């Protein structure tokens, strides 16, 4: 059964004066976790701000929960929890007071907001520190408070804008585990806006890749990264220029990896093409390992095609 999308946008054009940030994009966010990927200036944040009703589209339409954010912004925001990328707290306020305040602003009665605040702060792991002022928190704790204030009114859709920003690897893993838990156990739909592919891969089922104000790719991550094309990690000895050019001539794509090259084979070719091309180019293959196409490959391929277009 096809699920009805929570958010749909069609031929959406949004501009900041003469600069077009979204150039006629169409797509949908289905229930569940969805990643929103793209380099800086790709239009991700503009889409979120249009969804929250901050920006009016020049053309096209956007709907969230069947509501039009340009006309029913307050109704849309009531059902959305937004975790901004930038730091946000009120100086001098404890985490418990801050999250309760956020709940009240979302329309919860004061008593319920206070009770939900404690509950949510325990959930994000700040139960013991909830009576400390947010100013005294570490970066990781501030990220958790931001998440708590977005969760406090139990929204239908959570918008997470770079939730792992500024976190060390352990903190990042903890935050992603928390986000995964929100999605899996609490069954809350979320949009994870990130430039970190690993974060999206760990949490999301679907992804929309933005580039230069357009949708470069979208769909289920499993399908986008499925075994459609063979991928090999290759290390060679010798001048690789001719080798890489020949591979490209055969329709393969490559990019530099941490220690060698990641080669996406063209359809119908296997590792024998790599060995043959290497022999013809006069380089030695010192390492070859089959790999799976990652979201990063999809992302880069999508951006590459957009660039070519």
């Amino acid at each position, binding site marked *: 059964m096809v699920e009805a999308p929570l958010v749909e946008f069609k031929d959406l054009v949004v501009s900041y004066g003469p600069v077009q940030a979204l150039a006629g994009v169409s797509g949908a966010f289905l229930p569940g976790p969805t990643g929103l990927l793209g380099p800086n200036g790709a239009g991700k944040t503009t889409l979120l701000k249009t969804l929250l009703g901050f920006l009016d589209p020049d053309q096209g339409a956007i709907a969230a929960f069947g509501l039009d954010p340009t006309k029913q912004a307050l109704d849309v925001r*009531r059902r959305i929890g937004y975790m901004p990328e930038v730091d*946000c707290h009120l100086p001098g306020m404890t985490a418990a007071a801050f999250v309760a305040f*956020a709940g009240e602003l979302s329309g919860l009665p004061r008593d319920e907001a206070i009770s939900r605040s404690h509950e949510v702060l325990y959930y994000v792991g700040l139960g013991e520190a909830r009576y400390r002022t947010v100013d005294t928190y570490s970066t990781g704790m501030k990220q958790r408070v931001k998440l708590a204030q977005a969760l406090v009114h139990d929204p239908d859709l959570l918008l997470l804008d770079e939730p792992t920003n500024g976190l060390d690897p352990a903190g990042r893993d903890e935050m992603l585990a928390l986000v995964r838990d929100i999605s899996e156990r609490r069954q809350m739909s979320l949009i994870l806006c990130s430039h970190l592919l690993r974060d999206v891969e760990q949490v999301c089922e679907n992804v929309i890749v933005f580039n230069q104000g357009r949708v470069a790719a979208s769909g289920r991550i499993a399908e986008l990264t499925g075994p459609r094309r063979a991928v090999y990690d290759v290390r060679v000895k010798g001048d690789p220029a001719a080798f890489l050019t020949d591979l490209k001539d055969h329709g393969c794509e490559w990019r530099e990896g941490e220690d060698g090259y990641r080669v996406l084979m063209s359809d119908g070719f296997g590792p024998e093409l790599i060995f043959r091309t290497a022999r013809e180019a006069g380089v030695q293959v010192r390492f070859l390992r089959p790999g799976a196409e990652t979201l990063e490959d999809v992302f880069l391929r999508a951006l590459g095609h957009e660039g070519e277009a």
Partner: protein
Amino acid sequence: MRFWPITREALRLILIRRWFLALLVAAWLPFLVQVIRIYIVTRFPEANRVLPVDGRLFGELLAWQAFFTMFITIFGGAGLVANDLRTGAILVYLSRPLTRRDYVVGKLGVLLALNLSATLAPGLALYAVALALAPDLFWKWDLAWIGPAVVVQSLAISLVMGLVALAVSSLSRSARVAGLGFFGLLIGLEVARGILYALYRRPETALLSLQADLRSLGVTLFGLTDRSVSIPWAYAAAMLTAVGLGCLLILRSRVRAVEIVQ
């Protein structure tokens, strides 16, 4: 009433500072002085010639209170928007089911509450004290305008101070800079007015300064004598209205800009 949590929480954060409470208490000193004045006149009626007890008493009180509201506004209001811009808290408000108007009204409510506590409250309290201590002087039909006049002048002072402070606060991300900006604006305009008045002796120079415009209203409302600001009250009211509308435009533009830029 969506704005109410904004006002309430901001007030709570401001009022937990003891020195600010001390400032609010100090703002009632002119009230005490005027109570003593009324008391002296009731005990020694001949003192009425030196210390006249009539409507002007309230105008003088509110002139003093306007001075206190400047400091209350600086310390209570300079950071109201600036801090939200600096800490990103503005997004906490704007991503909620609140309009920009709710946000501005919520913040303005803070300054209105603080400033009215230093203008309207002592003004009306003094009127009550005057009626109680000197009923023969104040229980008169022809002095019944004092109550409404106190309300109008208090609202004018509180609203103008509040709107200007919020507008200045929205132009900076630093409460300190915003506070200095507000202080500089008020004092700078008043100094400029003083210089121009000294040079040309024309009361129209009052239009240049917010405090002078407010005093000009006070002159009309309470029958005070101040030749330097004795312009028709409508001019002062028009200028104050224009300033208020200008501040609202600045706030509208700044809050919208944050939504788009961040």
